[in-house]
């Protein structure tokens, strides 16, 4: 009984925080809509581009039906049937790479310009298909593997970083902005005049995160899966736990930025000062390994770097969360350190 009464203010403050969030269309858009727009934009920019099919003209008549049957289904070929005159014109104009003539009797003719780089390869591709259909057997078995496998594309690598950026922005701007406005409007002072436990007010931001963070992660990963086929290789629970831990350490930084700022301009400046370097150094859009070796130990200690590192291992490589001791340690240290410092520095007036 005593216990429930003790935690009731924290619960009420957290519910109030969540309620206010949903009633603010701007906040909802910036937290959920905007990151999706970025994901779409980047996904389009870096989508897998399969090479365009090579166009080939097949002169109708004679043995053309057998050739057409042979090349049907060969990847990377687009074969169209034309009369001899049209086929010749299209070859001259460069519209097709190669013209096939298959008389009823006699050799199959390939007409092409050998100076066009793809033409000899296309000739071999077609000839293989024609010979195999006529009964050629290859003595050695072979197998192809394309270099770009699912899970190793840019977009697979990008999505965990985007979640990091989104949580960083959401936690820092969300917490800091609301605190600074409350201070400006003397709401913090009013709360400080009640018997409210002061830690509860700050803790409520983290509790609200328990609702927002899983939603943010679900929306982003759900969208990435539908639109780009991005899968989470590791455990879903590990992904969720990492997202919560990450957002807690970012929210701690947000509190720190907001702990003394008297107006939103000051807070904006501080938050930009903290977030922008991390967005550059922590490998959201490109790998942080591009920075000099000497910087790497420092970069790994940034909370966003630690988050991206751990989440990419879990999401892309399917690593266990228990193998991510170092980045998790970094996140916990930031979460605790920033909160303790923020509580000590915090001004209610």
């Amino acid at each position, binding site marked *: 009984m005593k216990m429930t009464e003790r935690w009731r203010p924290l619960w009420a403050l957290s519910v*109030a925080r969540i*309620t*206010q969030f949903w009633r603010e269309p701007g906040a909802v858009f910036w937290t959920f809509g905007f990151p999706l727009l970025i994901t779409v934009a980047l996904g389009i920019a870096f989508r897998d581009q399969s090479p365009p099919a090579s166009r080939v003209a097949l002169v109708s008549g004679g043995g053309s039906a057998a050739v057409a049957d042979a090349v049907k289904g060969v990847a990377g070929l687009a074969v169209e049937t034309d009369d001899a005159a049209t086929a010749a014109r299209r070859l001259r104009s460069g519209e097709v790479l190669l013209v096939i003539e298959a008389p009823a009797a006699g050799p199959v003719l390939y007409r092409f310009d050998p100076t066009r780089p793809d033409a000899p390869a296309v000739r071999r591709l077609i000839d293989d298909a024609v010979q195999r259909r006529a009964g050629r057997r290859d003595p050695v078995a072979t197998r192809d593997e394309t270099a770009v496998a699912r899970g190793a594309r840019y977009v697979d690598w990008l999505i965990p970083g985007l979640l990091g950026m989104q949580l960083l922005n959401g936690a820092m701007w969300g917490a800091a902005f609301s605190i600074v406005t409350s201070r400006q*409007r003397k709401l913090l002072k*009013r709360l*400080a005049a*009640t*018997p409210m436990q002061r830690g509860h007010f700050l803790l409520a931001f983290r509790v609200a995160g328990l609702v927002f963070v899983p939603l943010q992660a679900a929306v982003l990963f759900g969208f990435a899966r539908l639109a780009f086929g991005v899968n989470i290789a590791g455990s879903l629970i590990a992904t969720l736990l990492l997202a919560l831990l990450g957002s807690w350490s970012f929210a701690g930084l947000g509190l720190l930025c907001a702990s003394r700022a008297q107006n939103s301009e000051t807070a904006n400046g501080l938050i930009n000062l903290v977030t922008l370097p991390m967005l550059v150094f922590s490998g959201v859009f490109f790998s942080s390994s591009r920075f000099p070796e000497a910087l790497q130990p420092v970069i790994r200690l940034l909370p966003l770097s630690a988050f991206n590192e751990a989440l990419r291992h879990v999401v892309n490589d399917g690593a266990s969360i228990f193998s991510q001791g170092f980045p998790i340690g970094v996140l916990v240290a930031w979460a605790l350190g920033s909160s303790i410092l923020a509580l000590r520095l915090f001004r209610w007036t």
Partner: protein
Amino acid sequence: MQAAIRIEGLVKKYPDVIAVDGLDLEVRRGECFGLLGPNGAGKTTTIEILEGLLEPTAGTVEVLGRRWDREADALRARIGVALQETRLFDRLTVEETLRLFRTFYADGSALDVETLLADMQLGEKRRAWVMKLSGGQRQRLAVALGLIGDPELLFLDEPTTGLDPQSRRALWDTIASLRDRGKTVVLTTHYMDEAEQLCDRVAIVDHGKRIALGTPSELIEELGGHHLIELITDPPLPPDALAGLPGVRAVRQMTGGGEGDGAALALSLSIDEPHVALPALVARLGERGVRPTRLMSRTATLDDVFLSLTGRTLREG
């Protein structure tokens, strides 16, 4: 009986200004006490020290027999506060705001939200977002939040500033009913009519010092009468030209007042009974052969008290 508030030698210094300069006060339990003064007199600083939101530079402050440095938590549970112009959570409703604040107080000691909504005439607005409320409704909500912990002592800082006359009246009724229920109320205001209407006793403060203390009626009495005659003559008369008139207790040269050149030459007469003083005054003016260009009799107010003490009107600050 122990005092609700005792302040001795209170000083609050800021780097560039001394906001409170050696204030002594005692507020009795069950009274409505007014801190009066122009803007910048140190009223808000004083009340925020009493609310435990500011630390005094020097002096002792005892609230409900307790000290802020030792028993802050116990005190916060026993006082109610309405700050000057607080903006609350914009996107919470009136009812949600009240229920949220109620959780900060121990279950047994907090008021019922329904009762409070009805008492403060906020029932119709219970589902309205705070940002959509009018000034008067906001102020009533602020007072309701001050009351929700069922405090022994309620602080109201400029409760009616910026309100339309009707909302002011409504809030005055509310505050008066609190006092009738035995609550101790401390309010600051720069409206003298508000203090006269609501307060059992008032302290007038100026430049961080107390310059008068008493019931509104006592303070007006100290002026020398409950009525005033304001007089401008052509040609102007010196104050001693009217001395010794029957029923006239004091004659002052008025300064300021902001009514142009004539204002500087106006005389103010403190009188007990207009029907005695007026005929004598008119006769004296006739003897002197001067013509009154303005002659006005009215009831004295705390504004006049402030004017006689400082030579300034309250609005001048």
